[in-house]
């Protein structure tokens, strides 16, 4: 590890990464692909924030049952993110309200932000990756 640091290849740099999820879970492949990328990123020890806004909040719904449409139910995977040290999950109040949802409807614990708080969180990132 110290050899790597001596090479000054940037491997020790920690950047702030935001993954911005704005799509509903099954109508497109964005939600599933985004989740896979987040899990890969977890291996690189970066400062990761996971944001769900607009239809993206639907990814976190409790009670998802995909048997009838014969696709993978990946909603349980959000619960495993903690085990990958991805613990910063954010949802915005505006998106929940527009869909008649509350935090109690979601499968994981999230921090609910007002619009200005979400805007500031986004602005302070080094990298924003959108799905």
């Amino acid at each position: 590890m110290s050899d790597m640091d001596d090479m000054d290849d940037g491997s020790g740099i920690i950047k702030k990464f935001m993954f911005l999820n704005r799509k509903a879970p099954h109508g497109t492949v964005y939600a599933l692909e985004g989740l896979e990328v987040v899990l890969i990123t977890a291996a690189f020890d970066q400062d990761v924030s996971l944001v769900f806004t607009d239809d993206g909040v639907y990814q976190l719904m409790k009670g998802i049952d995909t048997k009838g449409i014969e696709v993978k139910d990946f909603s349980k995977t959000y619960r495993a993110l903690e085990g990958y040290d991805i613990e910063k999950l954010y949802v915005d109040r505006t998106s929940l309200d527009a869909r008649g949802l509350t935090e109690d409807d979601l499968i994981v614990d999230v921090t609910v932000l007002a619009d200005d708080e979400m805007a500031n969180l986004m602005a302070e990132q080094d990298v924003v990756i959108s799905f």
Partner: protein
Amino acid sequence: MLHIVNKSASERSSLESCLRLATQGSAVLLIEDAVYAATTGNAAAAKIQAAAAGLKIYALGPDLAARGMAGRVLDGVNVVDYGGFVDLVAEHSNCQSWL
């Protein structure tokens, strides 16, 4: 005519266009991400309920369940399974998919 909508009303204008252009007595079937519009508290719920006065509104049950929405369907919306989907297509002389 049977109108079929498959996109989220908060992302695309297809549901709005459908409701604007569907004639009285037509059937509207919501599938895939369009089913969210037929759930309680959704921003599109008022439009769906107003439309239900002149149109027959249906939503596909397996798509509701896959989105955790089976218990949140608006009053006045008829939930159908895949067999019901086939029946709707067979009952109507023509159909329009709002892609």
